[in-house]
């Protein structure tokens, strides 16, 4: 397959996944902002969201005051923000259009339809008044996009690169979400509840985080116990059977990378495998001992590094 084609497929999947995770992140923040809390805490929540997406300064230039409505506006439909849902959906569709021949008709039409719909819907005034249904709709279209991909594409390189894009982006986004929400909850790095006696465990906070990655019921099913932050971290980092956990994402990245391996890719595969086995054999106590924030920062670096390697080995190879 053409390297350029693989590149577009990889980014199409990444942008769609990013749109979904942004919707999830906004959804949970919005839900938390409805809980009784001080004005400062609410503003702190929105600031955290911007900082984790590395958008603090570009937001400040556009809006100034950090309010729920402004952050929603910026993250949902601001076209100057490359990470807004509107920008992501547009980028996913542009990438799909560039390689529409490599997609099944259903995949292309789904992507195109998603863009046509959101280009109208996200601009509507009602979107900011009541973002809930819109954010749900983003998730639904993303589910549809992934489903039609798996359900109709030939299981060849094109699908493998789409899958790599999806899971690499999801690994990144889940890690960012964990980082920002844990920091918000404990007001700094998290070393495990035992380390900080008397810390109040806020059921609503943690259940909102779990719901944001569709993990509330899963948590109950897996632990059959009350919600404690260590277990939340364990579930979302280490459980290979939790579909949005870092471990699950890396399993899928590695599996798909192995299917497309080429003459230059040995080092990238090694690093991916190494990252995966760190998760496979990791323990939550070890992770928390060094601090969750430090751990996730390092994880994000390694995921970023993998993206660079994949790009160099497959997507944008140097001139022959």
């Amino acid at each position, binding site marked *: 397959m053409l390297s350029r084609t693989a590149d577009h497929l990889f980014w199409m999947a990444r942008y769609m996944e990013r749109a979904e995770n942004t919707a999830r992140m906004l959804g949970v923040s919005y839900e938390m902002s409805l809980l009784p809390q001080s004005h400062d805490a609410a503003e702190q929540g929105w600031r955290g969201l911007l900082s984790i997406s590395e958008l603090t300064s570009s937001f400040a230039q556009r809006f100034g005051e950090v309010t729920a409505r402004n952050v929603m506006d910026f993250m949902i439909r601001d076209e100057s923000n490359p990470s807004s849902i509107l920008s992501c959906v547009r980028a996913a569709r542009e990438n799909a259009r560039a390689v*529409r021949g490599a997609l099944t008709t259903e995949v292309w039409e789904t992507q195109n339809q998603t863009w046509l719909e959101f280009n109208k819907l996200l601009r509507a005034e009602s979107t900011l008044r009541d973002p809930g249904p819109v954010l749900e709709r983003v998730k639904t279209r993303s589910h549809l996009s992934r489903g039609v991909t798996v359900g109709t594409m030939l299981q060849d390189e094109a699908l493998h690169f789409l899958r790599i894009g999806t899971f690499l982006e999801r690994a990144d986004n889940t890690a960012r979400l964990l980082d920002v929400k844990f920091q918000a909850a404990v007001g700094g790095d998290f070393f495990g509840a035992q380390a900080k006696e008397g810390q109040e465990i806020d059921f609503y906070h943690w259940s909102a985080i779990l719901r944001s990655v569709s993990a509330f019921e899963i948590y109950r099913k897996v632990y059959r116990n009350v919600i404690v932050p260590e277990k939340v971290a364990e579930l979302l980092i280490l459980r290979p059977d939790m579909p949005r956990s870092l471990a699950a994402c890396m399993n899928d990245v590695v599996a798909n990378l192995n299917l497309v391996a080429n003459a230059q890719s040995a080092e990238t595969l090694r690093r991916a495998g190494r990252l995966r086995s760190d998760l496979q054999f990791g323990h939550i106590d070890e992770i928390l001992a060094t601090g969750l924030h430090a751990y996730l920062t390092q994880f994000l670096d390694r995921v970023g590094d993998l993206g660079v390697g994949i790009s160099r080995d497959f*997507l944008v190879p140097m001139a*022959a």
Partner: protein
Amino acid sequence: MSPGPRFDEMNAGMPGAPDAVREPYRTYARWLADQPADVMQQRREEAELIFRRVGITFAVYGTKDEGGSGTERLIPFDLIPRIIPAAEWREMRRGLVQRVTALNRFIRDVYHDQAILKAGIVPAGQIERNAQFRPEMAGVDIPGDVYSHVAGIDIVRAANADGGGTYYVLEDNLRVPSGVSYMLENRKMSMRLFPELFSQHRVEPVAHYPDLLLETLRSLAPASANDPTVVVLTPGMYNSAYFEHAFLAQQMGVELVEGKDLFVRDGFIFMRTTQGPRRVDVIYRRVDDDFLDPRAFRADSTLGCAGLLDVYRAGNVTLSNAIGTGVADDKSIYPYVPKMIEFYLGEKPILQNVPTYLCRDPKDLQYVLDHLAELVVKEVHGAGGYGMLVGPAATRQEVEDFRAALKAHPTNYIAQPTLALSTCPTFVESGIAPRHIDLRPFVLSGKSVQMVPGGLTRVALKEGSLVVNSSQGGGTKDTWVLEV
């Protein structure tokens, strides 16, 4: 617009008269009369929705939407098909095979012996001074001696004195003609919207076009390629015909490449793939000559592949169409095509040319200047309906402006009488009304000359307009070749 005889493809006479509807349209016209207006309106909306969802759009140059990307527009699809009786098509087909064969012989001749110039049939100056003449191609042999593998021949029909319609070739497009995807998508659309019509009519199918194209392209591969790798070369997704490039690549199951995907190594062309370089044998290029190789042609081109020309001249890759075909589809060469047919094939032309005045000839120029308001004047190198004057539809000021341009550069222009182009009933704001149409059949030349029945019918949606180009507000129709 022009007084005198008119020819409508469907309606021959006064409504109600027994022969009011021409034979090929009778079943269709009865069916159409039975359709409630709101149902047809629904179908029109459905068609538009589907075209939009499928993304069958073209980019409009020079305009941007609010997001800053180029505007994507739909080409309006008209629900009423244009019908060509099979007997007329067979005759047209013979004429197309003959014409395209002669044109290919001409291009080969121009780049080799120049027999037709030596015989004084085409003036040598017309070739040497032609910007589309590529001296790089002189003496280069290419597979099968075929140059224009995909030709789009624009045909119009005009009313003649005895009330019938005569087909004329309006122009030959021998470089990178586009529109075939609309022919295919229009058929898909009408079968989807009106399946019952296809059980009532025996419409010749067209869906095998990509198959014929692939067969043609493979047949032209360099002898060194056993199982040739074919690719489609596109300028990219912001090109106005990008949909078509992607569509044809997908339908043929070949890679759609951009210039940056290709490179030259050891005298061959390779593309960058996820599994390393892979050799390319046949390039169906939808990029103009000028942009193909920055080392040989325009140095600022980022659309081509540096070194491509050398590989091509060495016979290690096939370009389709060949480089330099533009020398034969120039409007200043067009008037000589009937003579080419006689010269190379020893046959009488089956398809007629529109009578043409060459403004570089002082006698013709004088005639044109005296009759500007009645004539269509075209720039010799213009395309897409730009740079032309339709005398009867122009304001006095436009005529005078053109007169000045014409006097300043007479060699840049040709003129033709305003033909009463045939019309076909078409859905417009006010209901159904006659609108002018043309036809572009796509002629494939490889080991043999092949085509699917019919072609793309374009329709000028503005009342009285003769300009059918999509960039100028034209629409399209499904085209049926029908056994009656």
